[in-house]
């Protein structure tokens, strides 16, 4: 059963993808994801887990590996009060759903770190399994949703380029 990773503090790109390991292959870099703030993350994260963060999620560097390592670990979505702009764009370009909580939303008491959850991207919705309480996120703009549905910017461009090909006479 997928679980929720709740972060109270601001998560920056450098704790997601530490600079010293940026030279290494993704699998090795991913081993160090969040080790400075949550050393247990890498050993406990499961496919389908969702990250719920506070303000300015992903602040810092433009390194897209900060979002890529989360995708590598099977994170289904990153939800936050607000995002740093580059991280938000990177997530979507990599096909990782990034969703924003409605302004001023009070999270239910049951929304705790480790809570069992289910996530529905089509509805921008997170459900807390035990209480069946629902956290609705802001709808994602259509053109960005299309990009995520395509699997990210690269498959999206592949689709566009293949449509552009003019058949030879």
């Amino acid at each position, binding site marked *: 059963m997928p679980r929720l990773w709740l972060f109270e503090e601001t998560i920056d790109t450098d704790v997601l993808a530490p600079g010293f390991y940026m030279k290494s292959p993704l699998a090795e870099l991913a081993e160090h994801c969040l080790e400075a703030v949550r050393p247990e993350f890498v050993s406990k994260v499961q496919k389908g887990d969702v990250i719920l963060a506070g303000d300015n999620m992903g602040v810092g560097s*433009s390194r897209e590996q900060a979002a890529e390592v989360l995708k590598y670990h099977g994170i289904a979505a990153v939800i936050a009060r607000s995002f740093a702009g580059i991280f938000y764009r990177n997530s979507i370009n990599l096909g990782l759903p990034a969703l924003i909580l409605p302004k001023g939303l009070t999270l239910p008491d049951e929304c705790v770190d480790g809570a069992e959850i289910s996530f529905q991207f089509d509805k921008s919705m997170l459900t807390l399994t035990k209480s069946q309480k629902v956290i609705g996120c802001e709808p994602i703009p259509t053109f960005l949703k299309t990009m995520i549905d395509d699997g990210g*910017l690269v498959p999206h461009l592949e689709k566009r380029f293949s449509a552009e090909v003019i058949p030879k006479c």
Partner: protein
Amino acid sequence: MTTLAQKIIAKASNQPSAKVGEVVVCAVDLAMIHDSGGPRRVKPILEKLGRSVWDKNRVAVVTDHYVPIEGEETRAIQELTREWVLEQDIKNFYDQQGICHVVLPERGHLSPGMFCVGGDSHSPTGGAFGAYMFGIGATEMAGVLATGEIWIKVPETILIKWTGQTDAFVTAKDMMLATCAKIGMGGGRYQAIQYAGEAIHKLNMQERMTMSNMAAELGAQAGLISPDETTIEYLKSVNASILDNWQNYQIEKPDLNGEVINLDASSLSPQIAAPHSPENSSDVDDFKNISFDIAYIGACTGAKYTDLMAAASILKNRKVSSNVCLKVAPASLRDQQRAEREGIMRILEDAGAEFLPNSCGICAGYGSDRLLKEQVCISSTARNFKGRMGDPSSKVYLASPYTVAASAIAGTMVDPRDMMES
């Protein structure tokens, strides 16, 4: 009337005007990539897409993150970078010449009205020259390189107006740290920031670059300064091509749709940011007597020619305290050479500084020269996130080159004005 950001975006999107909040596709005038997020990341994507770079003359490649080369992994990255540059026939290649944000303007690549992207979060530095420039990740950069375009949501402009004039030994870095404390790291809301007011236009171009660069630390997409005579004089000195109608981009009092933040430069003291965020800034007095192991003068916001000159003015005829180590990584080769010609490097050396290569150095934490367990550093860089410059237990305090240099002499954090007046 419009804002500088809207004016540039309207031109780039080939529309008479750009409405805030509207999503538009812009033609890119210049795309800058470096060795970390550049060729090694974009090459496989371009190959997958079956495309080459859309316009080799609009691409600049700089190696600065994996400099110096250490070991096989970084050697392979640099070799791949050089091979790709050759393969794509890119002439604007600056191999180990300094940090990308400093190299671009010194080689005349930026001018007012340009719409540019960079594969690095500190790309807003280009705003100092009246260019709309912002940072993007590697996949998005590959998309730009393949198509020559990028989508953007036309931003609001937040005007940060600095009145008055700074005291001696108070710099752009102090202005920016104070701004981080005032509006926070999310305060820029991924909008455009424009810096205005007499204190801004009194700054030289390298100090303006520090302002624009650290718009990234405010969470803004871009950090613009309306071009003036100082801008044009600088651009002429580096043989940049300047649009005949550059004055169209001289918009000092934009028709605002966002907020205005008024700040007073004349009452500003030197600032220090406590670990682990630039927004933890306050007056240097709040940090007096804090000791540290390393004093670092480095990075695109802290080791340009004017930063080296600032440090030298303090270090002249003085010696670094025996309990600290002063490390200096001049931000570009040209800046270092100028500092050598003018005797600045000699002053730093005589004071006891140790020199590092012209690269991102300890600031990026990519190489072996990094902070060790429990080490404390006072640094002229832009970011002090937990573990960024080394071990997660290390601590970084941010300050201006004056404050770093004065503190290196005292052995504890001090106000440079106290040292120079005593």
